[in-house]
């Protein structure tokens, strides 16, 4: 095995999806060895020989030097590059290498000893040393005394599947880090916490986003948005809107202009999205600004009381009317924040997919925070608000405490 093959094998090892346990096989009750008509033996042998699945049969001696191979079919030869006459009489370790999981091999032996069957996955090597991911299951064949006489291994090369799945996972993780990053604990004048729950844990990026921006004037901008739709299209739209809003906020544009620019992007692309932005100035005594566009209200928590801030602007994509006339000025709200006040920005996934009436949103958020008794910590408030909701949709919460 060349150093390159060895490195390739180590990379492949990261893609393996070993189940960790050997599940019972579909029909374990009537083993072939006990139930088939002996006159069928030549037919079954032919079936094994013609099978497209790689099949290896060994004797049942698990002690060193290990089981002896008594048969491999042509599919095994094709998959591994090993010729039958070169491997029969030897042991299966010629398929293993340094990247072959020791844990899986240990489990193989343990499972065969206790239950006579095994299924697992590990990096194996072909005759030329090249690595591949093999998924295989082994069934024991028992003799008339009930003791195993042979093991039958059915083997699949799952390298391409695992590599694809692994690549997709790497991509999703990178997207998630870029689009739903950790928020800083402190952002200028506020302490910040965020929590996101994906509708589908296997694909933890969707149309919802949150973002925090420290503006040039030292103010803190908090953003939560939600693109209608799902899948790759919604993720692309979300990324575009997220960075449109982010860049303009960094540059210090008034939030009304930021919303208009995002609306134009959405309209041009045929997207619809809702958005909430709150900007907390660097100096206390200056009111915070809030804008919502088709979005659930921003909630201000002060002690145990909660108030909604809602500006009745249409969702992004609908702010300029279809005739192209410019819509009236965007509605903004200014609110005075006292030290300890918490601003809570949510997407409708937190509101049980929007099933909570708009008017009930502040009470609902205050109840969840009170039930959790989390005090003034923004991260704990964010967690309480998400965890108190019914799972189903993507759910994002961003909390800032002055």
């Amino acid at each position, binding site marked *: 095995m060349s150093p390159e093959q060895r490195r390739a094998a180590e990379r492949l090892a990261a893609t393996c999806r070993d189940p960790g346990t050997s599940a019972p096989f579909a029909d374990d009750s009537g083993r072939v060895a006990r139930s088939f008509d002996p006159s069928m033996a030549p037919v079954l042998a032919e079936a094994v020989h013609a099978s497209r699945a790689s099949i290896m049969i060994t004797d049942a001696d698990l002690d060193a030097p290990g089981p002896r191979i008594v048969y491999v079919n042509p599919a095994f030869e094709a998959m591994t590059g090993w010729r039958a006459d070169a491997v029969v009489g030897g042991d299966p370790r010629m398929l293993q290498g340094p990247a072959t999981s020791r844990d899986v091999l240990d489990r193989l032996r343990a499972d065969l000893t206790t239950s006579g069957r095994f299924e697992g996955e590990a990096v194996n090597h072909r005759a030329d040393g090249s690595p591949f991911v093999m998924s295989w299951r082994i069934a024991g064949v028992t003799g008339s005394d009930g003791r195993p006489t042979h093991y039958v291994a059915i083997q699949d090369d799952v390298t391409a599947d695992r590599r694809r799945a692994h690549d997709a996972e790497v991509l999703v993780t990178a997207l998630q880090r870029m689009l739903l990053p950790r928020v800083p604990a402190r952002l200028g004048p506020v302490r910040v916490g965020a929590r996101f729950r994906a509708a589908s844990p296997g694909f933890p990026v969707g149309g919802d986003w949150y973002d925090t921006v420290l503006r040039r004037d030292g103010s803190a901008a908090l953003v939560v948005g*939600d693109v*209608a*739709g*799902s899948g790759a299209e919604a993720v692309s739209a979300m990324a575009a809107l997220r960075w449109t809003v982010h860049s303009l906020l960094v540059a210090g544009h008034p939030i009304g202009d930021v919303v208009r620019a995002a609306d134009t992007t959405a309209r041009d692309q*045929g997207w*619809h*999205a*809702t958005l909430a932005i709150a900007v907390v100035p660097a100096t206390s005594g200056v009111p915070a600004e809030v804008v919502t*566009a*088709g*979005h*659930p209200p921003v909630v201000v928590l002060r002690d145990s009381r909660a108030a909604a801030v*809602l500006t*009745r*602007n*249409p*969702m992004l*994509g*609908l*702010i300029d*009317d*279809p*005739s192209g006339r410019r819509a009236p000025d965007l509605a903004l709200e200014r609110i005075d924040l006292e030290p300890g006040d918490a601003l809570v920005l949510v997407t*409708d996934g937190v509101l049980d*997919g*929007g*099933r909570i*009436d*708009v008017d009930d949103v502040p009470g609902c958020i205050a109840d969840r925070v009170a039930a959790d008794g989390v005090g003034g910590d923004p991260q704990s408030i964010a967690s309480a608000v998400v965890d108190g909701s019914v799972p189903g*949709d993507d759910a994002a919460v961003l909390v800032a405490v002055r």
Partner: protein
Amino acid sequence: MVVTLDGEIDLDRRAEVVGLFQDAEATGQDVEVDLRFVSFMDSSGLSAIATLAGKLAADGRTLTLSGARRPVQRLLELSGVDRIVELR
């Protein structure tokens, strides 16, 4: 051309609703969407309505929403969809 929707119009039913709307758009007539039996609508439903309204408007046709119950009415207002359709 009247399209009657029912139940909860959310992401799970987006494809179905978009299909119905495309059929309605293809008739070349004004479209009325009857929301009497709709108990809830999420942003994907609102987006499908807004998209249909935009296409019809570009063609000089109108989209009317009828019978929206209060929770749905609130969502139409919150999203601004109420500004681009006729409500009845």
